[in-house]
């Protein structure tokens, strides 16, 4: 688990975090002020129209923690719709490679063909998806869109074990593991997967796919293709991609916590959030605020009513992304931005064509008959 030297993950909050307009209220049984109101025309005399320079100034992106499998980063200064778009893309629209077609030549194990095929499909592969094309649904597989694996395992009694009476029988291939998948290079693939690029294989070699008894055999050919998580979760590159809003605890200076209740008050929060100073003076340690669980325990006690407010910061997203598959965890977020820009470019291209259509034939009926532009 995490080391305690969390120096990089904790720092003091900027003063702007206390701007009440940025706060979502957390109450005993509801939340308040969830939606942003910063749109043009909402506040008289204020300009909230899109301004890239202002956005760039307010934006803060900070990677907090990184391991081989996961990353935690802060995205501050964007609307929920933007943060949510990236989260959704990471889960459902970043492509990966997964087994899609399974050809069973023999399966005498107790696990059914289709159940085993499903399990094999879910095994994450280490193949970089950028190197492959999507398979044409009507075409034949090629070396540019399909990776072939072979799974041929037979369970036998190990002849080398002791022949003594009563000695336990040792079996070979009692378990079929993901590591038993054997890559069969197609076309030019053998010359591509050389050097630094590891040969296609499951990222985890120890996933149990089936169990066998002596004499039982599994013999299959597997075709892995490129896909996205919205078609099937096996193509999702992440185990989880989620965000939460930065917690905030605000003490009311006009109703301080009495010293004899200070420890009880501190115990209502996650460890380290509330500090009890000399003489029972209570203060909030901003460096530990992000660890607050927001259990709302403090709201259950009558004696603390009115002396504390629980909030979250509406535009401060703490992302946690766990990679499962070919991407390094820190590469998933940039990849989601790339996919988002691709989507934008597609629509822009189509909208420009539409604009040319509309401008080109004013008052005409569009080709699909849906727009009636006559009558002027």
């Amino acid at each position, binding site marked *: 688990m*995490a080391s305690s030297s969390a120096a990089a993950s904790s720092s003091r909050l900027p003063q702007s975090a206390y701007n009440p307009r940025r706060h979502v209220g957390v109450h005993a049984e509801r939340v308040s002020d969830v939606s942003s109101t910063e749109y043009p025309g909402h506040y008289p005399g204020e300009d909230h129209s899109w301004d890239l320079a202002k956005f760039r100034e307010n934006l803060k992106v900070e990677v907090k923690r990184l391991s081989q499998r996961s990353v935690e980063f802060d995205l501050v200064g964007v609307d929920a719709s933007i943060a949510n778009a990236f989260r959704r893309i990471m889960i459902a629209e970043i492509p990966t490679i997964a087994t899609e077609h399974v050809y069973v030549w023999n399966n005498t194990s107790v696990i059914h063909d289709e159940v085993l095929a499903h399990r094999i499909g879910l095994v994450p592969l280490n193949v970089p998806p950028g190197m492959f094309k999507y398979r044409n649904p009507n075409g034949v597989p090629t070396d540019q869109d399909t990776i072939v694996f072979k799974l041929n395992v037979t369970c036998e009694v190990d002849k080398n074990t002791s022949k003594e009476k009563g000695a336990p029988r040792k079996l070979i291939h009692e378990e079929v593991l993901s590591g038993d998948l054997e890559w069969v290079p197609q076309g030019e693939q053998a010359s591509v997967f050389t050097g630094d690029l590891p040969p296609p294989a499951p990222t985890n070699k120890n996933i149990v796919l089936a169990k066998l008894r002596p004499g039982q055999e599994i013999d299959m050919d597997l075709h892995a293709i490129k896909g996205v998580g919205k078609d099937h979760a096996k193509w999702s590159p992440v185990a989880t991609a989620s965000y939460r809003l930065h917690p905030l605890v605000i003490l009311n200076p006009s109703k301080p916590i009495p010293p004899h209740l200070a420890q009880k008050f501190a115990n209502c929060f996650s460890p380290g959030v509330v500090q009890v100073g000399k003489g029972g003076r209570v203060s909030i340690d901003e460096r530990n605020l992000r660890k607050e669980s927001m259990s709302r325990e403090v709201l259950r006690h009558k004696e603390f009513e009115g002396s504390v407010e629980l909030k979250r910061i509406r535009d401060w997203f703490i992302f946690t992304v766990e990679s499962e598959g070919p991407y390094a965890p820190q590469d998933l977020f940039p990849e989601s931005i790339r996919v988002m820009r691709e989507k934008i470019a597609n629509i822009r291209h189509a*909208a*420009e064509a539409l604009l040319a259509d509309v401008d080109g034939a004013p008052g005409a009926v569009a080709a699909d008959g849906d727009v009636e532009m006559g009558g002027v």
Partner: protein
Amino acid sequence: MSDPTPKIKILQGALEPDLSAATYQIHDESHTLGNALRWMLMKNPKVEFCGYSVPHPSENHIHMRIQMYDNLSSLDALLQALSNLDDLCITIDEAYQKNLGEGQYERWDEQS
């Protein structure tokens, strides 16, 4: 097979001829882009109203309703919003890459 579904089309009932109010059907998109684009359109002071919907979960498209002040073209506003959204993506990407390069994060070991 007949014509493939167009990526974007204008639904019946758009205000002619300036398209100052129109509903666009965007094919193969969902809340992911719909909500982000709606937000960016609402950031435009010339937009009187903007909303989106996913009319049916088994139909793979969204509807984007845009109404403009001053008889301006909603299609122009849509294009402007798309371009602004692209700028936003570039800005976030740059900020992320810059911070990642600085390496001011905690590294830790996670067993799989």
